[in-house]
């Protein structure tokens, strides 16, 4: 099956050994989208590397950028100003909703609920419009900076997000009535692609796959980063570990994301959006005409880049697919020695053969959709 198959959500090949309709053996073959991001990142400065993360996991672009800049900030031992942190968090949660909408649409179309894909992409398009409004790009933003943001929010941002969120629960309920009470959807997902909590942990699964199996592990709660500790939200958990539970977990997560964004919008503080550290962030434009020192800093940052202290850090965030970690090794120069991208999809995909033990060919499609892989993330 694959590598070019509409149900594999990317370029994935599956070698299936069958007995009639029943799967005896299954082996995912990956690497078709391997582009050597980790190697590339070793050859560029920390700041240049911001372009890569959103290209790795292209459905949750802001979360990727957040993961990378947080890792570099941890290496530097700095934190972004509060306003920048909250803006990042809002955009990250919008990314999560956008990503889950793609899951919902594609999972539905795999089971021939074609209209839902259009609805989901319509909503996602609204989010992407907001992203474009903020960063100028729908997907590959490059908007986050080490130590803050590129520029402040545009006028009318809060109203636009608010308008989207006001209408969102109604739409989500509508989609749920299309699926949750749909006999075919339930028959095709309930008890299908079951993964026990024990197996999920043994295979290193995270995200909705792990939570669908009943383990309440969410990086936002377990290792709060980027200001998540300040907000109230629940971590939805399933119990049976089947495709239906993963679907329920993601639906609830979208509602929780909305809840977080609403709180964040209400408490969005005023203030700077970039750290006031001249060894990390460019000096403001107006200083350049007055201060020789600012010009030197500007020149050094542009021509050489940031020099973090030698050391190694692992920082992770909760991406829509699970724990997304960046492990960065620095030797004190302007380029990382090693950037390791811990991808959630890679581990989740590894558990696919376990989910489909003695399953049928038709379930393969459901199982792949339910782990919601991004092949760019698997292959990096």
């Amino acid at each position, binding site marked *: 099956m694959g590598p070019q198959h509409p149900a594999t959500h990317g370029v994935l090949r599956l070698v299936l050994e069958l007995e009639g309709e029943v799967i005896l053996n299954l082996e995912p073959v*990956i690497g078709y989208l391997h582009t050597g991001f980790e190697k*590339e990142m070793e*050859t560029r400065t920390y700041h240049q590397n911001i372009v890569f993360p959103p290209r790795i996991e292209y459905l949750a672009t802001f979360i990727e950028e957040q993961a990378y800049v947080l890792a570099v900030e941890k290496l530097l031992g700095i934190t972004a100003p509060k306003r920048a942190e909250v803006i990042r968090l809002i955009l990250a949660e919008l990314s999560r909703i956008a990503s889950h909408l793609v899951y919902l649409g594609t999972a539905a179309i795999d089971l021939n609920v074609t209209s839902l894909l259009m609805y989901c992409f319509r909503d996602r398009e609204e989010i992407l419009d907001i992203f474009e409004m903020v960063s100028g790009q729908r997907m590959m933003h490059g908007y986050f900076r080490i130590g803050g943001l590129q520029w402040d929010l545009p006028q009318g941002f809060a109203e636009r997000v608010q308008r989207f969120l006001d209408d969102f629960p109604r739409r989500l309920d509508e989609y749920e009535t299309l699926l949750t009470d749909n006999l075919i959807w339930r028959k095709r997902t309930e008890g299908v692609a079951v993964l026990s909590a024990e197996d999920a942990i043994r295979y290193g699964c995270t995200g909705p796959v792990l939570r669908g199996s009943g383990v309440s592990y969410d990086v936002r709660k377990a290792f709060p980063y980027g200001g998540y500790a300040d907000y109230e939200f629940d971590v939805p958990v399933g119990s049976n570990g089947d495709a239906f539970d993963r679907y329920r977990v993601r639906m609830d997560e979208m509602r929780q994301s909305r809840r977080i964004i609403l709180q964040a919008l209400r408490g969005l503080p005023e203030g700077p959006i970039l750290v006031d550290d001249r060894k990390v962030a460019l000096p403001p434009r107006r200083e350049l005409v007055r201060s020789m020192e600012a010009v030197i800093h500007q020149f050094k940052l542009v021509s050489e880049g940031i020099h973090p202290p030698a050391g*190694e850090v692992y920082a992770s965030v909760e991406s829509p697919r699970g724990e997304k970690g960046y492990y960065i090794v620095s030797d004190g*120069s*302007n380029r990382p020695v090693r950037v390791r991208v*811990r991808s959630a999809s890679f581990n989740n995909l590894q558990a696919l053969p376990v989910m489909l033990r003695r399953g049928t060919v038709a379930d393969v499609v459901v199982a792949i959709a339910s782990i919601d892989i991004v092949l760019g993330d698997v292959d990096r």
Partner: protein
Amino acid sequence: MTRPEDVLVQRLGEAVVEQVRFRDDLTLIVPREHMLRALEIAGSTGFRLLTDLTAVDRHPAQPRFDVIYVLTSVEQHARIRFMVHLAADQTMPSATSLWPGANWLEREVFDLFGIRFDGHPDLRRILMPDDWEGHPLRKDYPLVEEPVEFKGHTPKVPSEIIPKSKPKLL
């Protein structure tokens, strides 16, 4: 309250040759021969999730490789990192007997670094094509531009746009 990391360090005892703490991350450096046992103890101490397994090439420094394990305790919300120094000709014991999920991670390290894992059930390339030569993430594996047929084109390696600076001493 004793933290799970401290409990683990105590239980590991002599197996840990060095503890490195940087930005609140605790890294335990363990000799190669104790690694599997250390992982087993960590697993039974609550660090049940093998979050990541990767390597770093320190070429030309010796020992050349570091193999890194990131373990998470999903119940106690703790994280720990193990590091093993490995010479270029040494192999690592495979962790697949403890975590089946280590399978792909070790294949990836083998594929990109050429580090072999003893006892791995199926050590093949995973990301690169099967007939690929070399291990791309090694430092002596150059990143070059593919040759093109145009005349008058000088290949530009991205790493030369902003040259690498010497590490700054703080």
